[in-house]
Structure formats: structure tokens, C-alpha cells
């Protein structure tokens, strides 16, 4: 990386990052501090203006309410289940597209990014319809055609997760495919040539060259997408509403309900704060072990 060394300039770059800093403070930090503050109060619909500090009460409520751990488990299933499947799917497609002797790449690619390029709010509604058992096309046509059992998210938690994660995969795989495709293209093919000469088979090449080369990419998209998925609640909201019971409910869906169904802003803030602490801890672990930010030193 000599370029960054030689290119470094004495100019004070502070001016250049000032805009983003100001906006970050305005759009993230201040609301956050405010949210943190609210979480120590009893602000809700009935104390919209005359609320008081209630200390850690909201946090106590959260830990005593009994479904804290259930929600953590659900959030992890949702986040990791979605991420692992959509990253693998994206990766697989990227690998397929990256084959040198494959024809018609750009046409396939153009079709495959469509789910990403289409307004997601209607796609979700359509998916809701597709999953209806036994009338939606998924259960009427596709699954029987593939000799797979039908899926009904109303009566089975497992089915509900499958439905949620598959739908989320549909929405997101194009992004991962794009990311991995563009990273794969930048691996010098000499690396493969040489390994092949040394006797590496397809699998060896994949595990010894492709994966290590993409380590940084994987880490970067993993962590950003981890946070995004953790905080993403529209699919759950629209498809299962968190049911059956609260078996597909996540932190954020719950926080959202607290805020917008019950107007308990204080509790909602506390949920969000706790949720965020979790993401940050997990995020920091990933950052630490993948050295993703090292290139910024």
C-alpha cells in the first residue's frame, strides 16, 4: 500500500470530514443521547410532557419480563439464519458467474439483481400472498413441484422461520451476489494457475485461495449486513407479525411495538438501547477478529 503512504498530504483533512461529522451528530448522536435519556424516564402517552426519571426501571422491566432470552434467541436465528443463507447463496451465484467459460453472464446478472431493484414493500406483500397455504403459488405450485413439504407459518414456528428467511434471502441475495462477484473478479488468476500447477483441486483452490482472498470482503459485508438484518423488521412485521406466539419476534419488532402500538417511548428506547449494545458487542468482536478496520490505521 505504498500509494496511501506517498499520497498522504499535509493538508488538514478535518474540513473534509466535517460535513459527515455534523450530520452524524445531528442524525445519530443527538437522537441517541436523547433515546438513552428517555430510556431512564417514564415517557409514554400518558406522560408525554410531564415524565420523570425512573432510573433503571425500564431495564428492570425488560429483564424481568421473561421473554428477553426468547427474543435474543429469535433475533439470532433471524440474523444469522438470514445472513448465512443469503451470503452463501450470493457467494454461490458469484462463483458461478465468475467462471470464465460461462456465457451470457451479464444477462443472467441483470435478471438476478431484479429483486434488489424492485420496491421491497410490494415484494413483501406479494411474498405474503405467495406463502399462503394452500393457495399461494409457493405452496400450490413450487414446493409440490420440488417434492418439498408445504409451509404454513401460522401453525409451525419452523415453517415461519423458513418462510421469513427464504423471503429475506430473495430480497437480499442480489446484493451479496454483487459484492462477491465484484470481489472475485479482482483476484488475480495467477493465484489459481499456480495452485493448479501445484496440484490443488477445485475444493483446495476454493478454501485456500478464494476464501482467504475474500476474507476482508466477507468480514465487511458480514458486519454491515449483520447490523442491518438485526435491525430490519419489515419482513417479520409483514409476514408473520412475530407469530405464532412470539416465536418469531425479534428485539426490534418488539421495540417497534412498544413504541408505536403502546406508545411507551421509554420502554421502546430501553429495548433499542439494549439491542444496540448487543450489536455493538458482536460488531466489535467481528471487527477485532477480522481486522476489518486495520486498513484505516
Amino acid at each position, binding site marked *: 500500500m505504498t500509494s496511501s503512504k506517498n499520497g498522504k498530504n499535509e493538508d488538514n483533512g478535518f474540513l473534509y470530514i466535517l460535513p459527515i461529522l455534523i450530520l452524524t451528530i445531528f442524525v445519530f448522536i443527538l437522537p441517541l443521547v436523547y433515546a438513552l435519556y428517555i430510556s431512564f424516564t417514564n415517557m409514554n402517552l400518558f406522560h408525554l410532557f410531564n415524565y420523570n426519571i425512573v432510573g433503571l426501571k425500564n431495564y428492570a422491566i425488560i429483564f424481568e419480563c421473561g421473554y428477553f432470552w426468547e427474543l435474543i434467541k429469535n433475533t439470532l436465528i433471524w440474523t444469522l439464519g438470514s445472513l448465512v443463507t443469503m451470503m452463501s447463496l450470493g457467494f454461490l451465484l458469484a462463483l458461478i458467474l465468475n467462471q470464465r467459460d460461462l456465457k451470457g453472464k451479464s444477462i443472467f446478472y441483470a435478471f438476478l439483481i431484479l429483486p434488489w431493484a424492485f420496491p421491497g414493500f410490494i415484494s413483501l406483500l406479494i411474498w405474503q400472498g405467495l406463502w399462503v397455504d394452500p393457495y399461494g403459488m409457493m405452496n400450490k405450485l413450487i414446493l409440490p413441484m420440488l417434492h418439498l413439504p408445504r409451509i404454513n407459518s401460522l401453525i409451525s414456528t419452523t415453517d415461519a422461520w423458513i418462510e421469513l428467511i427464504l423471503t429475506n434471502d430473495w430480497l437480499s441475495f442480489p446484493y451479496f451476489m454483487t459484492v462477491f462477484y465484484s470481489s472475485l473478479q479482482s483476484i488475480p488468476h495467477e493465484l489459481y494457475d499456480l495452485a493448479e*500447477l501445484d*496440484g490443488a*483441486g477445485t475444493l483446495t483452490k476454493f478454501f*485456500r485461495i478464494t476464501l*482467504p482472498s475474500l*476474507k476482508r470482503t466477507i468480514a465487511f459485508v458480514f458486519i454491515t449486513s449483520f447490523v442491518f438484518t438485526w435491525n430490519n423488521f419489515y419482513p417479520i412485521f409483514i409476514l408473520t407479525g412475530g407469530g405464532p406466539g412470539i416465536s418469531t419476534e425479534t428485539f426490534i419488532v418488539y421495540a417497534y411495538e412498544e413504541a408505536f402500538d403502546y406508545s411507551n417511548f421509554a420502554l421502546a428506547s430501553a429495548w433499542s438501547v439494549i439491542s444496540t449494545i448487543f450489536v455493538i458487542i458482536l460488531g466489535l468482536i467481528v471487527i477485532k477478529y477480522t481486522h476489518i478496520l486495520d486498513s484505516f490505521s
Partner: protein
Amino acid sequence: MAHVKLEDIWKIYKEKKKTVEVLRGINLEIEKGDFVVILGPSGEGKTTILRIIAGLLKQDKGHVYLRGKLADDMSPKDRNIAMVPQNYAVYPFMNVFDNIAFPLKIEHVPKEEIRKRVLEVAEMLKIDNLLDRKPSQLSGGQLQRVAIARALVKNADIILMDEPLSNLDAQVRVLAREELKELQQKLGPTIIYVTHDQAEALSLATKLALLHDGKIQAYGDPLELYGQPNNSWVASFLGNPAMNLIRSEIAGEKIEFDGQAIPLPERFKGIINSNKVILGIRPENIEISQDGDIEGVVELVEKLGSFTITHVRVGNDIIKVIDKAFIKREKGEKVKLKFDYSRIELFDAESGVNLMIKNG
């Protein structure tokens, strides 16, 4: 039995609309222990040849024989060949040790054995103190050694090298060249080495192959090729400065050009049947001297330290002369040139073939 043999290799790249015939019938026989340098301008297909030998690319026509056996259908890993690619391709995510150990790991050599062999090679190449480093912490010269170490560690008896020194500093390059040569003499593998740098080619090669127009234009002892190029392209390509090539006519016992005439050397007599020829003479075989018989005017003086190249205009031609380092000449000075007639070559004006070789 040739150790590596290429038989009429053709390779055509198809790109969108146009097809490029990169190799158009390559024939090459390489003996065991040879250090063969394939020299050719950029983009002529040198890398392509190496990749075909390694089996990474399939030729469109022709055959590759390795160690006497037809290798066309062997996969790269069965060919037992090592390679140093054009940009080293040192795996950026492994440290030096792992990079060198990589071929052994793939072959599932036992851990201890791997350690031993890697250390041995690393010591030989004086990189044993770098084994823990990541490639990004290495200089170009060190990277190149790692790449060579990785090729050597396999103990393959055929090693392909694709311009391994081209990224190095001039100074370092000269040193590296010498080391490489010693290494080959010590270990004795067959090396096929690709470059577009003449100095490298001449100093390294036991056999030199010149690649141009998809064909091997010449193949043989480097100094013989240098001294007696088999065609005018070879003459113009080999040597720095290159051989002076002057369109001439044979008029009886004389060679005429630019209004000058020199006697036709004895050895050409009787074998010349065309009268339009190209006269070739190397700059180091011309002297600027009072008793020269060709008159010219100094056009440009290039001082290069250990010698000076003087460009002398004779008629419409510029003739380059290698001069002593310390001679001062001015532009416009009138000089006389003295050719070393014994070192003159004549080429056919049409086909460019060396008339001596063609006919003699």
C-alpha cells in the same frame, strides 16, 4: 530424448468479434538441464507458451511432450512443473513460510518434512529471516525470492519463469540474475524463462529462443544468434544498440549503399544470387578511424559511461557505432567509418533470410 518438446503449437484467442492467432506453429526441443530463455517483445505470446506447457491453457493444435511423454491430456498437477508467474502471485494472505510450504501442503507432505524443506530452500535464497512476514511487508526483490523458493521447494525438474525479474531495480536485477544462474547450475533443473529484456536473455540463456509473429524465429546458442542472426528481424531485435541494417546492392565484387561501396567479402562470393541485399553490421564492429573507407557525419552522441554510441549519418542511413567512452565528438563532425569485414552479414532484401545460412 527432449525433456520438453513443443510440436507445432497453435493458439488462437477469440475475443468478441475478432480472433487473434497468438501462436502459429511453435516448435521447440529443450534438453534436460537447459536454461532456455524465450525472448520476444511484449504481447507476442510468451506467457501463453508457458501456460500451455504448464497445462493451464489448452493449445488449439499441436502437442506438448514432457520427459518424452505426450502431455496434452495431463492436468497441470500431473505435469510436475513449477512456475514463477509474471507478477509472482505470492498469496497475499499467507506469510512467507506458508507461501513456500503451499505446494507441499497440497501434496500432503508430513509437517516435519515440510519444515525441513522450506527452511532449506529459504536459506539457499537467503530469506530464512523473513519467514514470518506477510507479502505486503516485503520488497520487490524479496517477493521474487519467495516466488522462486516456492517453485524450487517442489523439486520439480522443470521450472517455468515468467519475467521474474522485471519488477526489480536495475541494480538488484543484475544481482538477482547472477544468483539465478548459480542456482540453476547448482540444482540443475530445466528452466524455461520468458523475458523481453535482452541483457537478461543473453546473460542467462544456455539456449535462446526468439519469439515473433507467433513463431520461433531463431533458437540456439545466444552468442551464435547474436553473432550470426539467421534473419534480419533477429538481427534488428537482438543487441542493444541493435545491428545496423543497411539496404544495399551487390554490384560485382562490391556492396554498394548510400553512394558508398565496400568490397564483398570473400566468403559471400558465389552464394549471392540476388543483387538487392541488406547489409548487417553490429555497432561494436565498426570503428571510427582515419583509415576508414566510409564517410559520414556525426548526428548524435549518446554517452553511456562505459561506452559511447555515435550515430553517424551516411547518405540516408544512420549508422550506429560503439565508441570508446572518452572520445569527444561534436554533432556535425565529419568522420570515417571502418567496418570489420569479417563480421558483416548479408540478408536477403525480400525474405530477410541470412544469405550465408540459407545458402551455406
